């Protein structure tokens, strides 16, 4: 498996607002860029793997996207796995390439929750809605509360992640939100659901992104093909309050699988692009991954930094908190830019990069580790 499949092309629309634009049209725009970046003709794509748009889930959505792309692919599907879906789709595509079923897979996402419907983000949560249990954010607030109670953590331990992602986004000309954030501004941020502050929330962004994967040996330009070295998944699945430990998910298993497959240690990482839908997600992921002891991720980030010269450069294009609030592909694309040496905030000579995606309220999780082009 290790390195046999590469990410050969990436593309995305602008992030932010696309009033009146059709979701599928945004996907086609991003897909065309990714296919061109891979040096492929459209008809060389034989898998169209789509992440379900949360604001408008549809039946046979994968086929609708393939039709708009003018394709009749070998594999075509739409996956509902929340924010882990794009990384999981990349993994399934790579398995199909290895099995010889397909040659090039296109993984795409596009949605317009910013200018369209945010109902999915604010929705009543099943039978518990009668108690007032609404919104996606509330589940993360529940985890954030449990975290700060267990570890007696200071708000700055969460704020450091918002501050750094916003600093990174400010440097990214394509970021949705380019205004930096000070710690004082973070601490003064209003609260929608305690204990979350305004800047603990990621952005809600319109936009589409796409990547193309194929056999490394077949890449048109090997110097820009970023090999997939390790991958893993772990599905917690259970609702937050029903988990044996509110502060444990299966992300740990996903990481262990990916590091084992890649054959590298934690200390070998040059950077990480971590799914930062809320600040607590970053702390939890760093700790689930064994990159920081339990209860210490924020303290470590404050003490040692998470910028380019820090302990571990994180979300170098701004992540969901600043670059784009879209679910995960932008993190993979930034990982590719880093390994190609094309990032705005470029890590010097990166060897191994980590990308994490997760969805629901830490219900789903997927990991990839990428390496240097050959």
């Amino acid at each position: 498996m290790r390195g046999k499949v590469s990410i050969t092309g990436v593309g995305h629309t602008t992030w932010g607002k696309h009033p009146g634009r059709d979701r599928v049209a945004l996907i086609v725009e991003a897909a065309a860029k990714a296919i061109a970046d891979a040096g492929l003709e459209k008809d060389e794509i034989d898998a169209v793997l789509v992440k379900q748009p949360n604001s408008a889930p549809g039946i046979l959505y994968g086929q609708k996207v393939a039709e708009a792309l003018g394709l009749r692919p070998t594999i075509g599907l739409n996956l509902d796995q929340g924010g882990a879906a794009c990384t999981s789709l990349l993994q399934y595509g790579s398995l199909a390439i290895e099995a010889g079923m397909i040659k090039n897979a296109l993984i795409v996402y596009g949605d317009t929750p910013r200018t369209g419907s945010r109902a999915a983000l604010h929705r009543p949560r099943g039978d518990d809605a009668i108690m007032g249990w609404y919104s996606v954010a509330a589940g993360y607030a529940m985890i954030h509360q449990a975290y700060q109670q267990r570890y007696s953590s200071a708000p700055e331990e969460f704020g450091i992640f918002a501050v750094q992602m916003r600093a990174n986004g400010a440097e990214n000309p394509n970021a949705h939100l380019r205004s930096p954030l000070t710690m004082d501004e973070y601490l003064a941020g209003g609260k929608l659901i305690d204990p979350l502050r305004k800047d603990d929330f990621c952005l809600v962004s319109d936009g589409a992104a796409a990547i193309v994967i194929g056999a490394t040996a077949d890449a048109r330009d090997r110097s820009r093909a970023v090999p997939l070295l390790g991958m893993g998944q772990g599905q917690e699945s259970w609702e937050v309050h029903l988990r044996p430990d509110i502060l444990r998910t299966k992300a740990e298993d996903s990481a262990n699988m990916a590091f084992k497959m890649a054959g590298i240690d934690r200390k070998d990482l040059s950077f990480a692009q971590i799914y930062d839908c809320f600040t607590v997600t970053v702390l939890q992921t760093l700790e689930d991954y064994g990159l920081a002891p339990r209860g210490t991720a924020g303290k470590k980030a404050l003490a040692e930094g998470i910028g380019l010269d820090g302990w571990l450069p994180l979300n170098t294009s701004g992540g969901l908190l600043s670059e784009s609030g879209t679910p995960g592909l932008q993190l993979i694309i930034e990982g590719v830019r880093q390994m190609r040496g094309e990032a705005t905030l470029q890590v010097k000579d990166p060897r191994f990069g980590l990308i994490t995606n997760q969805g629901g309220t830490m219900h789903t999780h997927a990991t990839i580790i990428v390496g240097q082009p050959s």
Partner: protein
Amino acid sequence: MSFPVPEITDVNRPYWDGLAAGELRYQHCKCCGNNWLPAREHCPQCLSADREWRPSSGKGTILSWVVYRHAYAPHLADRLPYDVTAVELDEGARLLTNIVNGDEGRKLSVGARVELCIENEEGVSLPRFKLTDPK
């Protein structure tokens, strides 16, 4: 009116009937002994359908909580600010609830003891709790 009236099914009817009768019930697996909520047809541990409803002591412990300062539905505006709290019953089943004497969350803590305090809202009996020892 946006009040989310629960959808009553054959599986969850004993839960809501129990609350209307003044008791909180949970499901017990007669095969493996597991206790759980919310209502299901099968034990999520051993998948047996051989289950029964049992009355809870109504006593439990706080796992975590949040406090809403924004109303995500019109009917919630009058309740602001309000808490949603995760509680583990002494019998092991868990549920999301509200703490009636939590002082907008200020008196809540992980591990705090709580007891059942059923309240009626829009004709539905709801499993709310109160702190046993509010400080």
